[in-house]
């Protein structure tokens, strides 16, 4: 079964999407609630 990780472009795009998701997770659920 093919996945986005089978291509270099899919891997990089997945990494960028994950970065954005984690960024908003940290800013909205971690840093703001504890500082």
């Amino acid at each position, binding site marked *: 079964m093919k*996945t986005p*990780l*089978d291509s*270099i472009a899919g*891997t*990089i795009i*997945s*990494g*960028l999407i*994950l*970065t954005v998701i*984690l*960024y908003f997770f*940290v*800013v909205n659920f*971690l*840093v703001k609630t*504890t*500082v």
Partner: protein
Amino acid sequence: MELIIARWLHIFAGIVWIGLLYYFNFVQAVALPKDKADNTAAGITKHIAPQALLWFRWAALATWLIGAYYLERGHIGIGNAFMLKGTAAAIGIGAWLGTIMLFNVWVLIWPNQKKVLGIVQADDATKAKAARIAFLASRTNTMLSIPMLFFMVTGSAGHGLPHM
């Protein structure tokens, strides 16, 4: 001075590790099918790949150990980072991603690459399965390296994230 040296060595080892990861994904994985097609793959599989994997896996371990030392000896604290506490949350995300990547290197990539490269004996079906697992673990690490680098940079620069 101790922390500067630790940080310097952490980044040096990280460049060796991630540099080789990008070599595997952006160069070797693309070139190898072409090499197999014209029967020139042996040079890569017998000599280059084992040497690259040697530096790759030990650099991964060195990066993690020096990073853990730096977190603990610095003012962040390894516990605060891994518990994602307050301003340690950003570097903590980076530390978690790096830890998952280290696991992938030693538990998924290296044992399966040993089968693929013939360092340990395996039949063709086992080799094919091992190659797929190692490939996906390597690609997962490439994907994770993108947010890992982001959180390492932003976490260490200001010990906090810029708000959009």
